[in-house]
């Protein structure tokens, strides 16, 4: 790690910055929680939290907003990782919230929007004042405008035109009762940084991220693996293809990409040459409009 010229590499710099942010939240905000889905970004974020407090345990719980549409592999990974670290897992369940009438299924079957009220409900129930999210600014142009400490009012809303100035690394975590801060320790990481860090630190990931032959259908130019949530529709001819997932969202909405990458190193090679953004290539939910992410964020989404 130490170098004669006292310089950190790009990954070490990003790592240090993220650890600083995570520690600052633990020091200043009363009840933080880390959003952990078992996806690659939240896996890296959780690993950084572990490093921030080692050899002590992570001093806050993790939470998963479970839409009920998750890949079983990813849930299994989530539970295993949480057990290894000895942290408390809180599951905010969208199906439970539907059962008690908090939210209703949308006609298109997407639970992307209705997970926001479920998240906000859990935040209120547990009195969380800071929520760590694994969002990165390179993912989307609305996310490119996010602060590291993003203030949210008592309705969890983001007001992009009136954000707190964020100077240097002096983060302002002061809030009134009911308000909260969304914290994005991975703000300055890119998709490639995440993968390089996973490789460098040998961090375990769910097998979905690596290429495997799967039964797929083609829908609007994207390949969806056939599973409990994706059934072939009339006129769709399932076929076998070698694919991997670049992002892991809801199983009914997340497409796979053709790939031969069976190791993290090969995934890095593919990403280094790919010409599509990860969300553009794999997310049905972001295709609604140019401002889909901005609108969801204003409603309290991450």
């Amino acid at each position, binding site marked *: 790690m130490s170098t004669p010229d006292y310089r950190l590499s790009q990954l070490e710099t990003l790592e240090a*910055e993220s650890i600083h942010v995570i*520690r600052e939240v633990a020091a200043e905000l009363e009840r933080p929680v880390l959003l952990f889905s078992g996806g690659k970004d939240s896996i890296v974020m959780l690993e950084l939290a572990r490093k921030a*407090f080692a050899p002590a345990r992570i001093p806050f719980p993790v939470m998963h907003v479970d839409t009920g549409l998750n890949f079983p592999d990813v849930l299994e990974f989530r539970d295993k990782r949480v057990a290894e670290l000895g942290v408390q897992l809180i599951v905010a369940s969208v199906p439970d919230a539907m059962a008690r009438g908090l939210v209703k299924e949308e006609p298109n079957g997407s639970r992307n929007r209705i997970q926001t009220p479920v998240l906000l409900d859990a935040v209120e129930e547990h009195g969380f004042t800071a929520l760590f999210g694994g969002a990165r600014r390179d993912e989307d142009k609305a996310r490119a*405008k996010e602060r590291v400490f993003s203030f949210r009012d008592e309705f969890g809303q983001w007001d992009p035109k009136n954000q707190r100035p964020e100077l240097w690394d002096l983060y302002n975590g002061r809030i009134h009762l009911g308000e909260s801060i969304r914290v994005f320790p991975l703000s300055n990481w890119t998709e490639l940084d995440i993968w*390089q860090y996973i490789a460098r630190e040998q961090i375990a990931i769910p097998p979905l991220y690596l290429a495997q032959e799967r039964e797929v259908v083609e829908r609007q130019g994207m390949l969806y693996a056939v599973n409990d949530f994706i059934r072939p529709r009339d006129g769709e001819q399932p076929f076998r293809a070698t694919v991997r997932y670049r992002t892991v969202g809801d199983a009914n909405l997340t497409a796979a990409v053709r790939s*031969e990458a069976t190791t993290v190193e090969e995934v890095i090679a593919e990403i280094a*040459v*790919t010409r599509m*953004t990860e969300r553009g290539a794999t997310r049905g939910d972001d295709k609604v409009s140019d401002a889909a992410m901005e609108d969801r964020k204003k409603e309290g989404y991450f």
Partner: protein
Amino acid sequence: MAPDTNTAVPLDADGAVDVHSPVAEHAVELATARKDIVRIATAGSVDDGKSTLIGRLLYDSKAIFEDQYEAVARASKGDHVDLALLTDGLRAEREQGITIDVAYRYFTTPRRTFILADTPGHVQYTRNMVTGASTADLAIVLVDARKGMVEQSRRHAFLASLLRVPHLVVAVNKMDLVGWSQEVFDGIADEFSAFAAKLSVPDLTLVPISALHGDNVVTHSTNTPWYEGPTLLHHLEHVHVASDRNLTDARFPVQYVVRPQTEEHHDYRGYAGTVASGVFRVGDEVTVLPSGLPATVAGIDGPRGPVAEAFPPMAVTLRLADDLDVSRGDLIGKPENAPTATQDLDALVCWMAEEPLRPRQRIAVKHTTRTVRAMVKELAYRLDVNTLHRDRDATELGLNDIGRVRLRVTQPLFVDDYTRNRVTGRFILVDEASNATVGAGMLTPAG
């Protein structure tokens, strides 16, 4: 419109990327090489072609993906692709054709990784420029060659110098619209250099460019044979940023106390934080402030376990051989080189709230990991950013005003001058009622 320089990636028979092709291997080599991160802030209005310049840098460095490019191509009016649309992220920005808030962009070249804070140019959004420039190694100020240096250019250059951004680049844009005139460029260069001399800008570079056509952005232009300097990207890739850090004055603000309280680590007590400046080594004699008590560094734990030394901006945990009472907000330094412990802060303050700053006002100050209450004792003067005139009769600082302020704080802070130490010389001001961040302060020598 420049031709599409993006290299075609070989696909195998099934349409997957061929990761073993020479193109892919080369891309991986470039992408995974050990690089420095350089942080850039850009300032200028939409009319100066700032968004187009950023779009050009991103596009020519292949940081734009096909689906992003296609979306922009669809949205472009007229017969060329409007690269400016790549950077305006909010609905209101696209509708009004303005930039509202700082947006962060990422691009990588074979030599470096860049984090670019794209800041709005409007006067009313100065606070966002300060936000973007606060962490920057280098600032790019855009000037329209037809208009030359305007009030906004002065303001941007001044803010960059106020925040001690070590390197300033003036991109003189739209050179195509002044017939690539050396005379126009030299005139702007002279005027800017004269202004910069008053600001103590340590490193100033001017580049004649056309963001729209790409001249002197990534490749040298044949239209400016009289210009012998680097292209903009070449300058960004080679500017010497390593020496901008302070490796002399050891400062470690304690951020968090790590106490596992488990059987395995029963006696472990570590002080977590980010090295602000200087170098700490195992075995060093240190002093803990405010107690002033001496201690020895018994160990340094980094993200991957024990390390022999720590330097900025490493996030580490220091273990001390001595059993002292150390908590968040304390500062670990060296006995022969201590910061100033003081309750009186003299600083240049950039005010960012509608409600003005006035003497006798109470306010919260966050400095490193220490937050204290303060009273505004005195407003020495308000600075006119255009003329650099000091108005000593000013009674308040309004939104976007900059002035010299004296604060008295409730507990000592451990400070250095901002010019010497960007970490221990800075603070933010927070309104205790609204909790909003309302000001940025840079400590200056008293007098």
